[in-house]
């Protein structure tokens, strides 16, 4: 009996960390700058004889903060889970909240602008756009959006119709890293709240119940959970280690 027990624990001890390390270092493929944060939406497009929609985050982020679409307009945080339909857009929901000919281009006659089916669509626009005086980073789409907001290069709106009453909660968290020698994460509520509202992360992504970082190790983040919900494909990517672990020696 004891032998079985030791065999089992041994198996777990040796196999699990191996698999874990593999996953920890398997970062998503680095994308060209102009494509980072672009998502292809194809829930019903091809079924209805249209090309998939390509949405670019960089283009929209200059005008609106994340919360406008992901809280006020009810866009989910996972591609293809929001039931965006043409009817809904025409009623002024989802994309139609702005794309109505008043705030931005109208739907009629502009199908191809969204239904391009090409993740690279109008990437030349990006090179033109990126010439602006943006603070730079060498990761993701190459723009340091937090700095851009801070320095006023961009001034995205925080709401469309329903103003959010912000909680003045500026608590900084020091999150200890799981590995020895890795500096702790300095998490700023203030910086996140410039873009997001509480409900974008709480209580779904970060349960307030567990007051520990033990349950959100990098192995989960890399799978798109916890910080990875945004910081893999949309917000600055996690290979920019230093931005969260500022004490780390080199990237």
């Amino acid at each position, binding site marked *: 009996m004891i032998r079985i027990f030791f065999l089992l624990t041994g198996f777990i001890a040796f196999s699990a960390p191996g698999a874990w390390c593999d996953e920890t270092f398997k970062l998503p493929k680095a994308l060209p700058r102009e494509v980072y944060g672009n998502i292809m939406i194809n829930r019903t497009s091809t079924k209805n004889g249209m090309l998939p929609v390509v949405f670019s985050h960089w283009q929209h982020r200059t005008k609106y903060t994340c919360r406008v679409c992901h809280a006020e307009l009810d866009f*989910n945080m996972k591609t293809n889970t929001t039931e965006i339909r043409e009817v809904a857009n025409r009623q002024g929901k989802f994309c139609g909240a702005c794309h109505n000919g008043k705030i931005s281009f109208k739907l009629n006659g502009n199908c191809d602008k969204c239904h391009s089916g090409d993740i690279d669509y109008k990437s030349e626009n990006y090179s033109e756009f990126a010439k602006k005086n943006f603070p730079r980073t060498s990761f993701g789409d190459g723009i340091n959006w937090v700095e851009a907001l801070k320095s006023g290069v961009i001034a995205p709106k925080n709401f469309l*119709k329903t103003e959010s009453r912000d909680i003045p*909660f500026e608590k900084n968290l020091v999150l200890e890293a799981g590995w020895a020698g890795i500096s702790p994460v300095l998490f700023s509520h203030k910086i996140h709240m410039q873009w997001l509202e*509480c*409900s974008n992360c709480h209580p779904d992504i*970060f*349960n*307030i119940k567990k007051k520990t970082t*033990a349950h959100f190790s990098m192995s989960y983040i890399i799978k798109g959970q916890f910080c990875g919900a945004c910081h893999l494909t949309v917000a600055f990517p996690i290979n920019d280690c230093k931005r969260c672990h500022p004490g780390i020696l080199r990237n």
Partner: protein
Amino acid sequence: MKVVWTIFLLVCITGIAFAANDGSMKKRAKPYEYGMVTINNYSVKGGFAPVVFDHWNHRDKFTCRLCHVDIGFAMKGGATLIKANDNIRGYFCGACHNGMMKYGDKKVFAACSKKVTKEDKLRCKKCHADTVNSKKDDEFDSFAERLPKGRHGNGIDWEKAQEQGLIKPADTLEGVSIKRESLDSQKDFSLPTKVKGMPEIIFSHRKHTVWNGCEVCHPDLFVSMKRGGTKYSMVEIFEGKFCGACHTSVAFPLTDCQRCHSKPPQ
């Protein structure tokens, strides 16, 4: 030996428990879905589709208290164990849905009946909705259009709608409610928070009693009448206890943090 196995099992179980908190966004209810309750105690067993109840299209007409106190609906979906016969005798849904009551100039359709004719079957489907009503989305939109916008949940600020007189929910029902003297409500007060820097909660009895009287919350949800006497945490609220009894699924949701945490830290 047993101890070793227990420890081993415990390690496994904790592992699974941690894995279950997956740190990703759950699907949130659409505005017309928020506050929808599916009741299926006896429906399917009796050959009917489950009952789908919407709070939004009852709330503009009646207060919470009327159904949850005077008529006696429990606060948990499926806990009331409503039978067709109860409705026929004028209890629960049958208190209004009796085929006689009028709301404005419209007759309120009758709930269950003993004999079911072909025509009745269409009526059954009004509550025993076996297919998703594809028009509900639109019905909700035209309903919500005239009301002040709110964040999350139904996307309607019900409190404002009532204050502005855009909706006038009735608090009593003839033949069911018994007239009672109203009590003076306490002044608004603030409740301290545990996390430093988190704004305090301003709780208003006045705002709550419009909809709930005293009886919806006391003594079941909040036993103590003394301020601060009932101890609870945000975690318990998220689990549907205390404030969470209404504010997780029916009244404006907890994700609208600022609506309660409204007193800036001193």
